[in-house]
């Protein structure tokens, strides 16, 4: 496994690079500097959370305004389009949940790209394996 060898290029492993001019750390200005890719993944996750929150909130408002009772089941993926077009609250809530469930997949895929960019082949492989198992479980769930 990851034996005694040092990792080739840890992103923030050099304390000198991450520490600000000695001794003036503040609570609100973390010294950690994110690289562009990390920031992109971050933005995608934040967008995912916002979109998911918005969709679920829209579903709730629709249910309250149109007096639709909340159905006990989520909308099957295939019926989402028609449900959304028909302003069905369950479809909005379901899509919100799907977006939320998808965020960890985006997180792992983002790390995979990050390790590839760092030319860290070992951890790119490890991350690809995680993504593969995640996708496998989706397939298992379908059957």
């Amino acid at each position, binding site marked *: 496994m990851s034996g005694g060898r040092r990792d080739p290029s840890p992103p923030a*492993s050099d304390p000198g690079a991450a520490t600000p001019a000695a001794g003036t750390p503040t609570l609100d200005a973390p010294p950690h500097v994110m690289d562009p890719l990390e920031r992109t993944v*971050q933005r995608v996750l934040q967008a995912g959370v916002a979109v998911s929150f918005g969709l679920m909130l829209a579903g709730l408002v629709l249910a309250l305004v149109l007096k639709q009772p909340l159905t006990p089941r*989520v909308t099957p993926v295939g019926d989402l389009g028609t449900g959304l077009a028909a302003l069905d609250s369950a479809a909005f809530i379901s899509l919100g949940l799907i977006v939320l469930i998808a965020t960890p997949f985006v997180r792992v895929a983002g790390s995979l790209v990050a390790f590839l960019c760092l030319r860290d082949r070992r951890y790119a492989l490890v991350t690809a394996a995680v993504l593969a198992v995640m996708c496998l479980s989706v397939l298992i*769930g379908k059957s």
Partner: protein
Amino acid sequence: MTTLVAVFAIAVAAGVFGSMLGVGGGIIMVPMLSLVFGAPIKVAIATSIVCVIATSTVAQTRFARRGMTNMRLGMLLEVATTVGAVTGGVTAVLIQGRILQAAFAVLLVYVAWMMNRRRGDAVPERTGVLEDTYFDPALGEQVVYGCKRVPLGFVLSLAAGNISGLLGVGGGAFKVPVMNLLMGIPLKATIATSNLMIGVTAAASAAIFYGRGYMDPAFALPAALGILLGARFGPGLAVRLSARALGLTFQVVLVAFAVLMALQALEVLL
């Protein structure tokens, strides 16, 4: 409507604690939903899984900004936990769920006792393995640490994934002590990394629960909305609190969780 508001309120609290301790909100959500709100156990577990993902994603956006998540460590152990989660069904055939719950309850009490006996946090040590660094505002200094006993941590992560795949909860409560006590990772980095891992493990099973129709919008909606709000505050608390205070809170949660598990195993609950 009252159920909606009550589930939302509990989810906010679960989001704060779950993200602060790196255990996800499942510990609170599953018993609450099934006992207080009468949700069928599979619906409770499915809702809890959504909560864990929400906690993980929101917490990640907070912790990553501070560079506290050890990405390499997280991904390495995640190979084991996801495989463990997928094979949870195999274990279910071999061992009765109640026996597993009872064993898990005993294990959690033991872990809480170990954490209490050691007092204080893991002492950061440069081992040259999976090293990382972060800034700790409570200490006012940059912490550099390496990992110990990686193979053992890997094997135990397999068990953690297996348990969470089987019982729907418990992954984080087991992963945090493994990383902190055995692998020598400081508690704050452990919590940040665990927050990443629980979401990845949960996402694998979430798709299964969604496909089989166990997600009930009446519970999942208020729970997810509540967690998305609550989980914004936990990471800030985790970063600012002393490791000692965090450790004590964690021990209390472990013991409470153990009691719940034991009661379920004895079929007093659920």
